[in-house]
């Protein structure tokens, strides 16, 4: 990461409180209480999430890990208010998502949540710049001078300045992913959810993207929750949640890729 960005970022930490997320800083950004998500009935009944209790606090970079079909994507969908729960309570940015209607949930996503998906992150008909500004446009508010400088800074740091007026189809996978990161960071949401953000990238672009996410968390105080099954990706996080068969089976601090690998293999072997 460029030293310039570090300096600028540190200088900006003071302005991070200007986010619309106004509740107490000690309160978790995401809070799940006895959350279950059940698909199907009878013998076809599958509990994607089974009585999960977890809090995600401000400013951390959390990785949510687990084998395929463990329920980690469902975890993210539910935490982000994209999907309904079968039972339990989800609080997101101080609001009871489980009790909100579709419109209220949409408005909450608009102002408090940023998304980075594995692929197809960008609206194909909008340029990179328009994609980054979309959250502001949707909220119907003008980009303030200060926010404008912030976006310009992000675009410059992410190396997108020259490609800013291009359509997504004219960008490489890594560039598209960086535009998605810029969009997620631009409005300073309470939390950014990233779903396998490096799943479609080569190893160099992957490293870049993961370093960016870690920097955003450490230096901008940006809360990030990343779903991944890649031990290398998860090793960039400072908290690792492990989900298996709909249960939260592990809650760890930072680990090396090797340790994470061993941890996961342990679950696979244990399950067999």
């Amino acid at each position, binding site marked *: 990461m460029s030293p310039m960005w570090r300096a600028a970022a540190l200088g900006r930490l003071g302005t991070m409180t200007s986010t619309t997320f106004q509740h107490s800083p000690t309160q978790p950004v995401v809070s799940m209480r006895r959350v279950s998500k059940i698909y199907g009935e009878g013998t076809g009944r599958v509990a994607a999430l089974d009585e999960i209790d977890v809090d995600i606090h401000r400013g951390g970079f959390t990785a949510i890990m687990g084998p395929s079909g463990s329920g980690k*994507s469902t975890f993210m*969908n539910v935490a*982000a208010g*994209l*999907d309904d729960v079968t039972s339990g309570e989800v609080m997101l940015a101080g609001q009871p998502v489980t009790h909100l209607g*579709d*419109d209220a949930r*949409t*408005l909450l*996503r*608009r*102002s408090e949540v940023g*998304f980075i*998906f*594995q*692929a*197809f*992150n*960008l*609206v*194909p*008909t*909008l340029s990179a710049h*328009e994609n980054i500004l*979309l*959250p502001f*446009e*949707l*909220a*119907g508010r003008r980009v303030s001078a200060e926010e404008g400088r912030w976006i310009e800074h992000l675009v410059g740091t992410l190396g997108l300045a020259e490609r800013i007026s291009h359509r*997504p*189809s004219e960008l490489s*996978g890594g560039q598209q992913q960086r535009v998605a990161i810029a969009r997620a960071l631009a409005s300073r949401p309470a939390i950014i959810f990233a*779903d396998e953000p490096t*799943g*479609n990238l080569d190893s160099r672009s992957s490293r870049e993207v993961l370093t960016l996410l870690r920097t955003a968390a450490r230096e901008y105080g940006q809360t990030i929750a990343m779903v991944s099954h890649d031990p290398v990706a998860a090793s960039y996080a400072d908290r690792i949640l492990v989900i298996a068969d709909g249960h939260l089976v592990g809650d760890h601090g930072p680990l090396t890729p090797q340790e994470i690998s061993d941890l996961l293999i342990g679950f696979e072997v244990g399950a067999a």
Partner: protein
Amino acid sequence: MTGPNRNLTLGSLRELGTVGLVAGLCGAYAAVLIMTSSILTTMSEASGGSVGLLLGIVAGVFILIALYVGTVVIVGAVDTVISGRLRHIALLRLLGSRGRELRTSVMRSTAAVGGMGAVAGIVLGTLLTHLVRMVLVARDTLPEAEYALGDVQLVVAFVAITLSAMIAGWFGSRGILRVSPAAALAGTAAYTPAPHRTSVIRALLAGIGIVGGLAVLLLGAVVGESNPGAGFLLAFVGAAGSGTGFLIGARFVIPRVVATLSSVLGRDPSSVVARRNALLDPLRTTRSTMGLVIGVALVTTFASGMSALRESITSWELDPAQRAQADQVYEVTTIILICIIVISAIIAAVGFVSTMSLTVIQRHREIGLLRSLGFTRRQVRSMITKESVALSASAVVFGAVLGIVYGTAGAQSLVGAETAGLVWGMPVGALVGIAVAGVVLVLVSSQRPARRAVAVSPVEALRIDA
């Protein structure tokens, strides 16, 4: 069995429903015109006249126009289906299908579906005509005679419709050739139009046709002041020339019209995305609206021409009896002409509705993304409606303007010598009718897709295999 099964290339036959519907409409229309002219021929032979023959020729021209619009609509429908299945087609190519085989299979299925639609339409149209004939005979409006139950021309119509559907299938499936097998492995699920080379020759021909044709049309209107016969001939040549120019150059003209008109939609995100989608692929925009432009232009031309003629006649000095007779003749002729010509507009509207529905199905993932980023259901709905407004309003306005110019110039070239100055044909009734039809079209073409679009859950955007 050569080449892959059609279901592999095109998915369910439901996706080809438009092809069947359009072929059916063409078939029913052709059957009504052919059987009507056959009945009139029988009738005039009984009373010694040649109305039937003349009608036969006129019917042929109108059927060809309907068939042309139908072909344009089918090309667009097939292209839309194909562009929504590019990844699937890429997979077939990866597994070893040749592009040519895939296209042949598309052609076979459009011919089959078109043929079935044509048979259904022709049978329905023939039955309908005979039913009306029997009622009219029973009421003594038509004389008793030996009316033929069918006509050889019905077979000709069937062959023509099936052939058109086949040719349209071939042209509509050009997209297949641009699919690289490697695309099956890539992660991009978004529809990106292939870059189209702009042909200089096409632009040149279109320019010559439009400019030259309009000049000749103007000349016809001027000459009509002194020599009606020569004037009308010139106007006809001019209209045909500029019309052909617009057809050749539609892909240059129509996207610009849509861009200009849709800029009034607004600056909010749903308007911006709607406008961009309406213009995403200039060729698709052209195809989905060209039929409408032609249909509306034809209807307006006749309505405007007849209204200009009528204006002229009212300025002449006629005794009341003559005036009443002339009025009645014009009223009846106008209604019959518009009824005959309106079918092209209806066929075009069917095509438009199906294109709108299909593009929304294909944009599931993009809509899911918009929802997860904070588009409310209302904004998604308004986005779909605005896209439909941008496209249909442009087609209707452009078609109506063309029609008024053609109709007025045509009438002027015919009766300019007997009327002072230029009489603009402003068929208020017909224009109001077209505007109402346009609003209905927007509602019909956006309701179902919009409902489908708001049902898309934000989770849709996260699916990897969309």
